C-alpha cells in the first residue's frame, strides 16, 4: 500500500508528458502495415456464414495475417508472426466457415474470422508446413460443421495430416518415407491427392501423385507422371491443386513454349502451345478454388510487351482438356483474377487502364470499366489480385478487385474507381534517416559572416542590398497572410509537402527517408501525418543487385544508400528521389570538428579496435578484447548531435555536480552463454581506456539486451533468467550517471582546464581521469527490445528515455526524473533533494499509461526508433519503424514555447475586436465629458 502511494506520488511529481486527447491522431500517425499480400492467400470471404458483407483476407510475404475492410481499406485485425518461420505463409478458409486457418513455419493456427482471436494452434515440431487445404467435402457431402484442415508437412518429417477443424487435433497422419520432396496437397470431393517431387539418382525429376482416403488417410493409389526432364525443381511447376472437381497440375518447358497439364487422378498429360510471336516470359494459371464451380481455367501468357490469355475447359467425364476461347493480347501489363458465383466462373482482367469481366463459358465481355488512375498508382501496373463480381442477367453489374500494384501499393478498384490504396511497400523498413535539406539558413549565415570581414560602410551597403533583394519575396508573403491567418484560426491549409518543409516555422515538417528490405526507398513527411512525398525502387538504379538490408546515411540534400551486395553506394536526392551521380557531390565528414583528430573503431574478429584516421594507418591504436569467454554482442556510442545545455547538475544546496561529458564514450555489451552472464563496459573510444564495468549474473542471454548512451548517462536493460534461483526475476533496467568527481563543486583531476585529451594526456593534471559513476537498477514489467533518447535543439529540455515494448506493442517515454540514479534509497528525500525533484527509490518502475506515446495504436514489429530535434526547443520528433511505421512528437518538459491546441485563438481575436469597438464607442463620450468639465469650472 505504501509502495503504491509512493509510486503515485512519484507519478505526480515527475512531469509525465502524456499525449493530450486533442493532439492524438493529429501530431502522430501510424501505418498499420501487412506487407505485400501473397497471391494464392488473398481472398474475399464472409467472416461468418450469415454475414452480409465480406472481408478481404490475406497473408503477406512476411507472414502477417491481415484482414481489411474492402470498403475503406481499414484494418479489421491482423496477426503478425512472432518469428521468421521458414516455409511459405499459407492462409485458407472453408466456405461458410467462421474461422480462417493459417500456417507458417511449424505452426498451424485457426483464427476467428471476424475478430482475429486464436481458436486453436498446433505445432509440428521439426517440420515446416508446405501446404494447407480445407477439406470442403467428404464423400461428396459438404460438412456443415467446422471443416477439417489437410496439412502437408515437409522438411524432415514429410507427410500429410488431417486436423480437426474445431480443435486442431490430428485425426490421422500419413507418413511418406520415400524421400520425395513434398510439393502440394489437393483435395477433390472423394480423394486427397498428395503430390511430391520424386528425384531419382539418375534422370529427371518426376511428379508422383499419391491418392489418400480422406477418412482414414490410407494410401489408395500412387502413380508417377513423366515430365520429360522439364521439371528440375519445384519452381518449374506452374500450378497444382485447385480444390475443384478436377484438380490440375501444370508445368512448362524451360523456354515457356509448351504447356503441359494433367488432371490429377488421371495419367494423361495434355500439351498446349503458347502463342507464337513474342517470347513468353511467364505463364500463370488461374483456376477457381471452389468445389462446386465449373472446371474451367485460364492460362495467362506474359511477354515483354503485353499479355494474353486462353481459357480452357475440362471435360470431367472424358478427362480431357480443351481450349474454349482466347482473350485478345493487350499491350502493357495486366493480371487476371478468378471469381466464382454458384457454379459460374468469371475472369476479371485488370490492367492499369481498364477492368473487364468475362465469363468462363464464352468470350463475351460482361462488363467493362475504365480505371481512373490516382497519383499513388502513376506508372505502376497490376501484379496480382483477387476479385468479387456481381452478375445479374448476363452482365456484370459490379466488380471489386484488390490488386497489388508493381510499386507496392495494394489497392481496391471498385467499378473502375480506386476505392483505397494501402502503401504496403513501406512495411519492413530496415533503415531510416532524417533527411538533411540544403538549408537556406546556412546561406544566410554565410552572408552575414561575409559582412564581418568588410569595413563598416561596405558591410552596411551589403546589408541594405540584401534587404532590398529580400523584398522580392514580400508580395508573395503579403498574399499569403490571409491564408496563413485563416489556416491558423480554422484549420490546416493544404500545401505540397516540400513547400511545407521549406517554410516551416516550427520545424515539425521533417523528411524521413526509409529503405525497406527489398530496396524500396521512400520519403515521409513526419509533420503532415507521414505523407509519402516520393518513393522509388532502388532496383532500377542497379538491376543486378538483390537488396538484403540496405543502410543509409544522410547528408545535406542527399542520402547515401549502401548494401552488402552493392558495389559502392547510390546517392539519392532527398527532396525529389532522383539519382545523383557521385561526381556531383563532395563527400565531407561532418563528424570531427576542426583541430580534432579522428579515430574510428569497429568490431574486428570479436574485438573492438580503434584506428587513427581510417585511411592512412590500418594498424589498431587500441584494442578492447573482452575477457575470456565473453562475446561482444553490441556497442552503442554517443550520438554525433548531442547538445548539452548545462555542464553540471545543480544540487538542492546550490552546489554543482559536474557532468562527465566525453563525446567519445562507447558502451559495449558482452555476454557469456555458458555462465549466463552479461557485462557492460564503458570505454573511452579515443584511447580505448576502460572507464567503468558492471556485470550481471543469471541473465537470459538469448533475450535482447538494449542499451543507449546520451549526455552523461547511459542505460541498459536485460532479462533475468527464469531458470535461475535468484530472489528476483523479470526484466531489469539499469541507469547510470557519470560525474567528473563525487564531490560537489569539484571538476575532478582535470580541474578547470578547458582542453582534454585521453590519447595524449598532459602531465600533472591527470587527463586519464575516470568518471564517478552512480548507478541504480529497477525492475520493469516488460522486456525492452530497443531504447533511445529524445533529442532537442539545445538540450535544455529534459530528456526522455524512449523504450520499445514488443510484448504490449507500444513505445513508452520514461521521464528522466523517474529513473534518476540519485534517488535516495531506504529513506525519504530531504528537503533539498525534494527541491531537486528526487523521490524515494522504489525497486519497481511501472510504466504509467500516460507515458505511452502510441495511445490507441498497436505498433507491431518495431525494430528501431529514431529521434530528431524540431525547430522549437521543447519538442523532439520521434519516428519508429519496422513492420509498422509510426511517427509522433514529444515534449518531455511540456510544450513551453508553443501554444497548445487548447488555446482559443478565436476567443482571443474576438476579445481584441470587442475591446477595440468599445474604445471606439467610449472615446467620444469621454471627450465630451472632458470638454463639459472645462466649461463648467
Amino acid at each position, binding site marked *: 500500500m505504501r509502495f503504491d502511494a509512493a509510486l503515485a506520488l512519484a507519478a505526480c511529481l515527475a512531469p509525465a508528458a502524456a499525449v493530450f486527447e486533442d493532439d492524438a491522431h493529429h501530431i502522430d500517425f501510424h501505418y498499420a502495415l501487412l506487407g505485400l499480400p501473397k497471391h494464392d492467400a488473398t481472398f474475399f470471404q464472409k467472416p461468418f456464414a450469415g454475414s452480409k458483407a465480406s472481408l478481404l483476407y490475406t497473408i503477406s510475404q512476411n507472414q502477417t495475417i491481415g484482414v481489411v475492410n474492402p470498403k475503406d481499406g481499414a484494418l479489421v485485425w491482423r496477426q503478425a508472426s512472432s518469428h521468421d518461420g521458414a516455409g511459405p505463409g499459407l492462409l485458407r478458409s472453408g466456405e461458410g466457415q467462421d474461422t480462417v486457418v493459417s500456417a507458417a513455419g511449424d505452426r498451424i493456427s485457426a483464427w476467428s474470422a471476424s475478430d482475429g482471436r486464436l481458436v486453436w494452434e498446433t505445432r509440428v515440431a521439426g517440420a515446416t508446413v508446405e501446404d494447407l487445404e480445407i477439406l470442403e467435402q467428404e464423400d461428396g457431402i459438404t460438412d456443415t460443421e467446422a471443416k477439417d484442415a489437410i496439412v502437408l508437412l515437409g522438411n524432415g518429417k514429410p507427410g500429410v495430416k488431417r486436423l480437426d477443424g474445431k480443435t486442431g487435433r490430428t485425426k490421422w497422419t500419413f507418413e511418406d518415407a520415400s524421400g520425395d520432396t513434398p510439393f502440394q496437397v489437393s483435395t477433390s470431393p472423394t480423394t486427397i491427392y498428395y503430390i511430391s517431387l520424386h528425384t531419382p539418382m539418375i534422370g529427371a525429376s518426376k511428379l508422383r501423385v499419391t491418392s489418400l482416403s480422406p477418412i482414414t488417410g490410407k494410401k489408395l493409389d500412387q502413380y508417377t507422371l513423366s515430365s520429360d526432364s522439364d521439371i528440375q525443381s519445384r519452381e518449374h511447376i506452374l500450378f497444382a491443386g485447385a480444390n475443384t472437381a478436377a484438380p490440375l497440375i501444370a508445368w512448362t518447358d524451360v523456354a515457356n513454349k509448351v504447356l503441359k497439364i494433367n488432371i490429377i487422378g488421371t495419367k494423361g498429360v495434355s500439351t498446349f502451345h503458347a502463342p507464337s510471336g513474342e517470347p513468353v516470359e511467364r505463364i500463370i494459371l488461374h483456376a477457381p478454388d471452389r468445389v462446386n464451380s465449373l472446371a474451367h481455367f485460364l492460362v495467362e501468357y506474359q511477354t515483354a510487351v503485353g499479355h494474353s490469355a486462353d481459357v480452357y475447359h475440362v471435360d470431367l467425364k472424358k478427362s480431357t482438356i480443351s481450349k474454349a476461347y482466347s482473350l485478345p493480347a493487350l499491350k502493357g501489363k495486366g493480371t487476371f483474377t478468378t471469381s466464382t458465383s454458384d457454379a459460374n466462373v468469371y475472369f476479371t482482367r485488370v490492367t492499369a487502364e481498364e477492368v473487364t469481366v468475362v465469363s468462363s463459358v464464352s468470350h463475351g465481355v460482361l462488363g467493362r470499366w475504365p480505371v481512373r488512375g490516382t497519383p499513388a498508382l502513376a506508372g505502376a501496373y497490376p501484379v496480382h489480385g483477387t476479385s468479387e463480381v456481381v452478375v445479374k442477367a448476363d452482365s456484370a453489374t459490379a466488380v471489386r478487385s484488390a490488386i497489388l500494384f508493381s510499386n507496392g501499393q495494394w489497392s481496391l478498384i471498385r467499378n473502375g474507381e480506386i476505392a483505397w490504396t494501402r502503401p504496403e511497400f513501406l512495411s519492413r523498413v530496415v533503415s531510416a534517416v532524417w533527411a538533411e535539406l540544403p538549408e537556406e539558413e546556412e546561406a544566410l549565415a554565410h552572408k552575414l559572416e561575409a559582412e564581418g570581414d568588410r569595413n563598416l560602410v561596405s558591410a552596411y551597403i551589403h546589408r541594405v542590398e540584401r534587404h532590398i533583394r529580400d523584398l522580392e519575396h514580400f508580395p508573395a508573403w503579403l498574399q499569403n497572410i490571409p491564408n496563413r491567418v485563416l489556416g491558423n484560426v480554422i484549420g490546416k491549409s493544404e500545401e505540397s509537402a516540400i513547400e511545407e518543409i521549406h517554410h516551416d516555422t516550427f520545424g515539425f515538417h521533417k523528411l524521413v527517408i526509409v529503405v525497406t528490405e527489398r530496396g524500396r526507398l521512400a520519403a515521409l513527411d513526419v509533420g503532415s501525418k507521414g505523407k509519402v512525398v516520393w518513393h522509388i525502387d532502388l532496383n532500377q538504379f542497379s538491376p543486378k543487385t538483390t537488396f538484403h538490408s540496405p543502410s543509409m546515411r544522410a547528408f545535406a540534400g542527399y542520402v547515401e544508400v549502401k548494401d552488402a551486395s552493392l558495389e559502392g553506394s547510390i546517392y539519392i536526392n532527398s527532396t525529389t528521389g532522383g539519382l545523383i551521380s557521385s561526381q556531383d557531390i563532395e563527400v565531407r565528414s561532418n563528424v*570531427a570538428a576542426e583541430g580534432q583528430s*579522428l579515430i574510428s573503431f569497429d568490431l574486428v574478429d570479436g574485438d573492438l579496435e580503434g584506428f587513427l584516421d581510417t585511411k592512412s594507418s590500418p594498424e589498431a591504436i587500441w584494442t578492447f578484447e573482452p575477457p575470456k569467454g565473453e562475446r561482444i554482442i553490441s556497442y552503442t556510442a554517443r550520438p554525433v548531435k548531442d547538445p548539452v545545455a548545462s555542464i553540471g547538475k545543480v544540487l538542492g544546496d546550490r552546489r554543482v555536480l559536474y557532468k562527465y561529458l566525453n563525446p567519445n564514450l562507447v558502451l559495449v555489451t558482452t555476454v557469456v552463454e555458458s555462465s549466463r552472464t552479461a557485462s557492460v563496459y564503458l570505454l573511452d573510444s579515443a584511447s580505448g581506456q576502460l572507464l567503468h564495468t558492471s556485470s550481471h549474473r543469471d541473465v537470459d542471454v538469448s533475450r535482447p539486451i538494449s542499451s543507449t548512451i546520451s549526455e552523461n548517462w547511459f542505460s541498459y536493460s536485460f532479462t533475468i533468467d527464469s531458470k535461475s534461483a535468484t530472489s528476483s526475476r523479470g526484466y531489469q533496467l539499469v541507469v547510470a550517471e557519470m560525474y567528473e568527481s563525487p564531490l560537489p563543486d569539484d571538476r575532478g583531476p582535470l580541474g578547470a582546464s578547458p582542453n582534454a585529451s585521453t590519447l595524449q594526456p598532459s602531465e600533472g593534471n591527470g587527463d586519464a581521469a575516470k568518471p564517478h559513476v552512480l548507478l541504480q537498477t529497477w525492475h520493469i514489467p516488460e522486456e525492452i527490445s530497443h531504447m533511445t533518447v529524445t533529442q532537442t535543439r539545445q538540450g535544455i529540455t529534459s530528456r526522455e528515455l524512449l523504450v520499445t515494448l514488443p510484448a504490449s506493442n507500444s513505445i513508452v517515454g520514461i521521464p528522466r526524473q523517474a529513473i534518476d540514479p540519485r534517488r535516495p534509497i531506504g529513506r525519504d528525500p530531504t528537503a533539498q533533494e525534494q527541491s531537486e525533484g528526487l523521490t524515494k527509490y522504489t525497486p519497481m518502475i511501472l510504466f504509467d499509461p500516460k507515458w505511452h506515446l502510441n495511445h490507441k495504436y498497436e505498433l507491431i514489429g518495431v525494430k528501431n526508433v529514431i529521434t530528431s530535434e524540431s525547430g522549437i526547443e521543447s519538442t523532439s520528433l520521434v519516428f519508429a519503424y519496422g513492420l509498422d511505421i509510426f511517427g509522433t512528437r514529444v515534449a518531455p518538459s511540456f510544450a513551453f514555447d508553443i501554444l497548445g491546441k487548447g488555446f482559443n485563438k478565436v476567443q482571443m481575436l474576438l476579445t481584441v475586436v470587442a475591446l477595440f469597438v468599445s474604445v471606439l464607442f467610449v472615446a467620444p463620450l469621454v471627450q465630451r465629458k472632458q470638454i463639459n468639465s472645462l466649461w463648467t469650472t
Partner: protein
Amino acid sequence: MSAPPPPPPPPQWVLDLESAGSTKPKNSPLPDPPGYTASLTRKERAQSSKVAAVRKAPTPEEMDTLKMKKAWELAIAPAKQLPMSAIGMYMTGNTLQIFSIFMIFTLFKTPVMAVAGLQRTFAPFDTPGTSGRLIGVKLVYILMNLVGLALGIWKVNQMGLLPTTRSDWLAWEGERTWSERAVPREWL
C-alpha cells in the same frame, strides 16, 4: 393650546459656565495644587519673560553638549530598528513573495536614503563647535545604517538571490574541448 409660559431664568451654574470669567477666583483662600501652573495673564506673562531673561543663558559649550547628545541619539536610532526588522525578516520566510520582496525593498531603501540625506539630517546640530565631533557621530550613523543594509543582504542571501555559489556561475563555465573524436566506422 395656550402660549407656553416663558422659560425660567437659567440657574447660576449655567451663568457661571457661560461667562468666561477668570479661571482663578480673585482672592481664593486655597493655594494652587502642587505642580499646577496657572495660565498666565498677559501682564504676568510679561513679568515672567522678564524673569526668564533674567535667567542665565546657557553657554555655547552647553549648547554643543546638548546638540551632541541629540546627535548621538539620532545616530543610534537605526540600530534600534534592527531587532524589529530582524523579526520581520524571520517571519516572512525565504520564499519569494510579495511581502518579503516589499520588506526587503524597504530594508534596502531606508539605509541608502538615510546615508544620502546625511548632511541634512545632521544640519541642525552642525555648529562650529560641534562640527569636529560630529564626524564620529556621522560615522556611527553610517555604520548603523550599514548594519541595516547588511541585514537586507543577509536576507537576500538566505533567499538565494545572491550569486555566491558555484551553480550561479555555471553558465560561464565551458564544456571541455576534446582533442580527439572517435566514432564507429559505419558513421564515416
